[in-house]
């Protein structure tokens, strides 16, 4: 536990101070929170700073393709029952942003850290975490990211020597492959609606069989491990078989899954599931996601969906037709510059909704929806879409930079 009370070295202290100063300058210049620039400055002065800061904390790492920002928030909220928490709550999830976040919490007991998938192995090495939560892996930004199975392999190698308790989703074969080289794994049946990145066995390449909720490789015997925790509808089942109700302000099945994983993490640190789940109710919007805002006298719910798996989960949580839906897609650097993934999303699920399309790549979406046989209207901007939308709350679904654009437009 966080028993190491050795103070930071003068060099580390200097690095923290310099980082904070750089962040303040960046903030003053109106360039966001400054956490990334601050972290970069600090790491330059003391490359081992992340490890030094982590020494004083019980570190929990959270990684996944989808849901890592929200789950980090849920875990931070739950662990608040056991002591002060420092966290990179704004989603700055690479080493500089993480360093900056930890530097801001000198009297914390827990460090709950969201980590970009690509950096997990390195951050796990630097911070000696007590627990690592692995939620899911699926295709994302294929124009620049490593292959999905290679990412699982990278995790597997990076975590094989870790002493951390790994809390892993038993329903995602790629996550199971990544986690199963570790000696201490808590399996959570958290579900995984998207299945199209795990039809071939990550171990031997055989064709995966997926009857019902189960999965196994017909060739080598790699199979779903028996979970000790499970999401069951609106309940979390703990290892003793007790069912605890999930009350969240956050919508959707995926967030219930995130809550189940978070409860399993909290239990590692002695926080009982009912206490953890009650505390999770406090979490409202996470970095603007799921926020309901008023814009031009209309209610808009802002939903972020960055990749096919994310869109699939998002479609399952929106209000039924005739609720109007606005879709916005960009293909800037942070989104991935290839829009082909739109064709891996089953847009026919939006049948019956009035649909409005915007964003840099609205024409790609228009062709996608036309081929899906849907009616839609292409709009120049959010104002126009809202103006044409029929009455009722509007669901707004956008990918990463499109989502940031929307938040700026609605003043959120």
């Amino acid at each position, binding site marked *: 536990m966080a028993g190491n009370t050795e103070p930071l070295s003068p060099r580390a202290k200097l690095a923290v101070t310099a980082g904070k100063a750089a962040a303040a300058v960046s903030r003053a210049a109106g360039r966001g929170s400054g956490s990334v620039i601050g972290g970069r400055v600090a790491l330059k002065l003391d490359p081992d700073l992340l490890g030094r800061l982590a020494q004083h904390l019980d570190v929990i790492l959270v990684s996944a393709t989808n849901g890592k920002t929200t789950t980090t928030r849920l875990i931070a909220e739950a662990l608040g029952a056991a002591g002060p928490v420092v966290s990179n709550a704004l989603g700055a999830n690479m080493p500089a942003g993480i360093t900056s976040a930890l530097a801001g919490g000198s009297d914390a007991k827990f460090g709950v850290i969201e980590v970009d998938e690509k950096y997990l192995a390195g951050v796990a090495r630097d911070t000696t975490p007590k627990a690592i939560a692995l939620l899911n892996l699926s295709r994302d930004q294929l124009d620049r990211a490593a292959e999905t199975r290679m990412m699982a392999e990278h995790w597997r190698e990076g975590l094989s020597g870790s002493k951390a308790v790994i809390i892993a989703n038993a329903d995602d074969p790629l996550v199971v492959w990544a986690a199963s080289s570790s000696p201490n794994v808590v399996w959570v049946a958290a579900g995984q609606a998207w299945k199209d990145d795990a039809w071939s066995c990550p171990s031997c390449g055989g064709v995966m069989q997926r009857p019902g909720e189960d999965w196994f490789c017909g060739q080598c015997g790699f199979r779903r491990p028996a979970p000790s925790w499970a999401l069951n509808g609106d309940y979390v089942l703990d290892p003793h078989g007790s069912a605890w109700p999930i009350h969240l302000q956050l919508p959707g099945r995926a967030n219930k899954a995130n809550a189940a994983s978070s409860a399993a993490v909290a239990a590692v640190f002695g926080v009982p599931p009912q206490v953890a789940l009650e505390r999770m109710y406090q979490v409202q919007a996470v970095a603007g996601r799921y926020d309901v805002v008023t814009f031009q006298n209309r209610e808009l719910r802002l939903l972020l969906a960055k990749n096919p798996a994310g869109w699939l989960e998002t479609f399952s949580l929106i209000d039924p037709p005739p609720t109007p839906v606005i879709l916005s897609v960009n293909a800037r650097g942070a989104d991935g510059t290839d829009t082909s993934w739109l064709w891996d999303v089953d847009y026919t699920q939006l049948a019956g909704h009035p649909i409005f399309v915007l964003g840099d790549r609205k024409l790609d979406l228009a062709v996608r929806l*036309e*081929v899906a046989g849907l009616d839609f209207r292409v709009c120049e901007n959010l104002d126009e879409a809202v103006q044409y939308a029929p009455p009722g709350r509007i669901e707004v679904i956008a990918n990463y930079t499109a989502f940031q654009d929307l938040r700026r437009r609605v003043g959120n």
Partner: protein
Amino acid sequence: MSNNGLRLVWVYPDLLSTYGDQGNALVVERRARQRGLDVQRVDVRSDQPVPTSGDIYLIGGGEDRPQRLAAERLRRDGGLSRAASNGAIIFSVCAGYQILGHEFINDLGEREQGLGLLDVVSTRGEGARCVGDVLADIDPHLGLEALTGFENHQGVTHLGPTARPFARVRFGRGNGTGDGTEGAYNDTVFGTYMHGPVMARNPQIADHLLKLALDVNALPPTDDRWYEALRAERIASATQPA
């Protein structure tokens, strides 16, 4: 084409459907139905036999390991090769394109045998990965409008004497051989590096395959305004430096 309508076969979605190329199947199916055709779409997983009686076969791109597994299973199955010798139309993208050639470099760095349905040989490029928007002119013999697509590959594909270049690039890399060629084709088998997916950006190619399969010279027109708007935007974008 049989009396039961157009048989559209989507080969190995479990292995070769990573870059949205199933959009090609969706576009061909949609455009066939818009012309009043019955379409029977068959998705064949890699543990199932590839039917030999299809009219149009589509194969997509995939990652390196699934590509090797797909080549092994297609060679062992033999169905796609038999369909090709029956005169079926086959359209392939990226990893699928390489598999249809004589050989390619697999994920283990070894030479992997392909199906030899296209007279091409693929190697792995030494330079940076080819990633980005492409604009190319399709072989004038085919009488099709310009090709727009998105490439994302490390492969270099050399054409043998019986394969014709599918297109010549104006912007982008294509086959990566430095001679400006993009893709390859013979009478019934086509290969390209273009994603996007390629049919969504180039419905003229989907129609070309339908005409070949139906053995007709023309198809009833469709409302293509969104395709046309997208094409205009992507062509303009490809001609501008990033």
